[in-house]
């Protein structure tokens, strides 16, 4: 029993000065202070995360974004279906350096495209032209960083010399009404633009993402639009029907049956907004299907929602058809992206 006796024992001496490693103010501290006392540093744990999900939202307010945002940019944002991703905060990203970023990215793409090219041809011009631009007027709160639009133009292979270059890829980074506590807690040299949408060839998307990763030390992950968020979107969009005259609401479920079964439900819009109302609507729908088709929709998953105002899929594809409700939609999606942040 003497085996432990030789271990050093130490009695606490209250008046002895214990030197502690003095560290500069750590990020956790500053980060935490932003979160407020209630959430403390564990604010991103699942249980508390659930609490951070809003259970009530304002009805889609009409923001006259069309007056503030450049119509060309707005048209691009509206007409395209975007594949969404979440992005961790960008380190050392400067909105003033966009020109130089455009140069770097086009060089990066040219280098990437030439990989696997066995033939070396002198004077092979870079066929890709990259442009970075600010989307001014998109932000809602003071904490939001300005959105950035990236476009890649390319000359068609068989085009004549004088034919203008065509856009082949476009993408944007945005943050609309991001959680102010989270944004404020980040150190100054980070820019948080958590929502990334892109449309174009997958190869180019991958190249752009890896350039961002290497330049700003960020990570891109697929942003799936969850069941709940889809229902929210549906609620937000259908509530606007008085304004824009919604013709139909379409929902697609996938049920785990063999063979795979898709249920499509289409109907004219209704008027609800609270989560209770959404839930009760869904409940009614489910019991309707069960009564008439012996189908339990809750066994499946809601995959897609589309209305005249836009469509969203579980896989993270999203299209906004009307610029007037863009801000509302992007606010919700920004919230989804922030929920995916690792810390």
């Amino acid at each position: 029993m003497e085996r432990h006796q030789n271990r050093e024992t130490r009695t606490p001496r209250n008046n002895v000065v214990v030197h502690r490693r003095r560290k500069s103010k750590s990020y956790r501290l500053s980060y935490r202070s932003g979160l407020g006392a209630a959430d403390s540093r564990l604010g991103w744990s699942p249980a508390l995360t659930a609490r951070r999900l809003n259970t009530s939202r304002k009805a889609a307010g009409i923001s006259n974004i069309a007056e503030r945002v450049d119509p060309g940019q707005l048209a691009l944002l509206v007409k395209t279906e975007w594949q969404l991703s979440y992005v961790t905060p960008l380190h050392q990203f400067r909105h003033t350096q966009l020109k130089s970023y455009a140069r770097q990215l086009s060089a990066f793409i040219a280098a990437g495209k030439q990989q696997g090219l066995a033939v070396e041809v002198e004077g092979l011009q870079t066929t890709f032209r990259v442009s970075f631009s600010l989307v001014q007027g998109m932000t809602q709160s003071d904490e939001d960083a300005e959105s950035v639009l990236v476009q890649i133009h390319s000359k068609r292979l068989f085009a004549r010399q004088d034919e203008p270059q065509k856009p082949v890829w476009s993408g944007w980074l945005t943050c609309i009404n991001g959680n102010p506590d989270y944004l404020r807690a980040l150190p100054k040299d980070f820019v948080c633009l958590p929502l990334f949408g892109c449309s174009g060839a997958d190869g180019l998307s991958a190249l752009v993402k890896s350039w961002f990763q290497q330049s700003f030390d960020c990570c891109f992950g697929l942003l799936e639009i969850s069941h709940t968020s889809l229902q929210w979107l549906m609620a937000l969009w259908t509530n606007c029907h008085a304004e824009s005259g919604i013709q139909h609401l379409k929902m697609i479920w996938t049920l785990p049956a063999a063979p795979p079964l898709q249920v499509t439900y289409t109907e004219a819009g209704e008027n609800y907004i609270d989560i209770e109302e959404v839930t009760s609507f869904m409940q009614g729908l489910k019991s309707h299907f069960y009564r008439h088709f012996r189908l339990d929709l809750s066994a499946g998953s809601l995959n897609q929602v589309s209305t005249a105002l836009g469509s969203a899929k579980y896989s993270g594809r999203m299209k906004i058809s009307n610029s007037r409700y863009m801000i509302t939609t992007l606010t919700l999606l920004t919230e989804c992206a922030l929920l995916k942040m690792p810390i």
Partner: protein
Amino acid sequence: MAATLSLTGPPDLDLSSASDLSVSSRSSNRSLRVAEKERKKKKAEDPFVLALKYFSDVEAGTPVNGNDEVERNMVLVEKLAYSKGLSPEAISIMLEFAMSLRMGTSLCARVLKCLIPATLVPQEAVVRAVVWLSVGKIPVSTQILFIKWVLTVFDMIDAKDQLRAVYGFIFNFVTEENLCPFICHLLYLLTRKESVRVFRVRKLLELQSRLGRQPFLLSLLSLYKVFCPEMVMLSIPSRIKSGFRNHNMPWKSALIAVQKGAGPHVAAGISPASTTIKTNPRKRKRCHLELPVMTSVVSKEAQTEPSSCGKVVPLVQLHSFAQLLENMHRIELPAQMGSLLGSSLALQYLDCVQDESALLRLNFWLGYALHEEFLFCGDRGASQNSQEALPFLDRLLSTQHFLQEGFSCSEAFLYKFLNVWDGSLLRPQILGLLSNIPVVPSAQIRQLLFEPLMQLFFTSSLFFKCGLMECLNNMLLKWLTWHSVYALEDDLDISLNSHTSINMTLSGFKDSVMELVDFVGRLASLGLQLEGCHSLLLSFVLDFYETVCDMFMKYGLPLVVMPPPGVFYPALFATDPVSVDRLAYIMHRYKVNFTSAKSQEELTKQAFHISRQMVREFNHYIIVMVNCLWNSKMFQLDMGLSLGEDLLLKSKVPQYWASFDLVHHPAFMSYAVDFHHRQNENKMVPASKRYTSNQCATS
């Protein structure tokens, strides 16, 4: 068509056997024929054969949406294609079905993607498909997919003569903008001297003047020049290496997999079509566990602020500790902080600079990787492949040990992951990460830690229980060490983790430790009951209490918590002497701690900060131990465990009150027997020394 499908067996056996049928062998052949019939019948019922029959017979314009039959058959074909590959006949049928667009364009691409040949590709099928290329209204992307497929399986096409015969036909597609590079590649593979014609050279040159010097055109032209130098006057750069881009072909990896499975007899066919195509199986899509390569920051423009120290040294250029020390003041962090994980030198630097945003970058990357791999993978089943996850977590663990603290992102990750963990996936690594988490405030500890752990504990095996006990012991040890290192002079404010600086009051810290010890007490009591006081589990539990009993002396934490009866009594009545011995040691250490606390109280005239309740509990346990082991006074009324007098009498154990004393305790039985032998030995020594030594050896 289905009748001619002989996928496996020899061609029509019963026809040949019928022709030379002799009377004598008829009876024996009959049984053969029956068996053969059976076999054929079975084959006809083979779902795959039926599926092929479906695809060869299906009428044009059959709807796809909601058509379960086509879906089912398609899945069958795909399954076989990816596991074993398709026979030449199957390839013919499926290719014909796809290219004729009998059921629309969406199925066409899907079929093309699964056309993985097991052995050969019949030439006729490819020629027919090429014809369809100009007849049908196939979308451009699918046309490209088809040509890519031909390029991939080119070496497996059984003959090329007919394809060469339609060279001119194929050449026509060169004017299609999107197809051009791929068609050039195909032509490159098919070109013979006789196919080089003036009008073709002219066409290519015309294209080149429009497109610029595109590599695929140049390659084809250079080949033409090799065959007919007089026709191609173009000067082709001498450095040119003939070759085409390795298009990211979706079949490559599947093809390799199929051929690996099929063994060596078919492997000969799969040398790539062109010499420059590398066998580059499609890269896995999920690569978030790969450490980024350490590179210095690329964009110099990004750092416009004038750096006072002049030249900076990228971390990647440092190779020794001495270099690190020399350049300490002007080191530049790499572009991607994730790359630090791979280098201990970089970690040294990180530990010493304490750069807030550098750490945050590392945490973002690490957290992203953990989340994507284990939480967001969903049905993609990413967590199944532990070949990558295991070394990744091991590296993370060794990094944390190196830095002697956990990353905040792994902590945040664990709180989520514990809720979905099955308790067996990468158990040592996850428990290792868990033991590294810093002190959790007592208000949240239950929800974040205890609830998920409790569920896992009670539903898992003995080994998980032992592992968890060890993990919680390590966790407590780390908390206590942090406390003793970072305790501030006023003993009120302690910083538990150099990176996190959670400012926690001493009482807050004590609450957390108390919660943890209580929790382990509850787990241990119930666990020991569930596992029948398994001595392995008991040993891990006692390990934990060896840490707990010395909290005051070793770590300066004015807190003493006694083990619950559910731990104390199983240890006291254990059947192995080690457990009882360790319990005695633990009680001894408790006593030392109590007396030390008491004497300190007298010295500093401070209020005694150890609860009286604990002292009472301790005294009670001591009385029980002494009564039981020493005084032979088991089952006295004040002992905490009471049994009815009549019950004890009924058991007919003689002198039941002495059955757990030092002499009769089951744990010490072997010592008692040993003692007895020695007594015997002593008695017998005068009689016969040899005899007793023999007996001792046998007993």
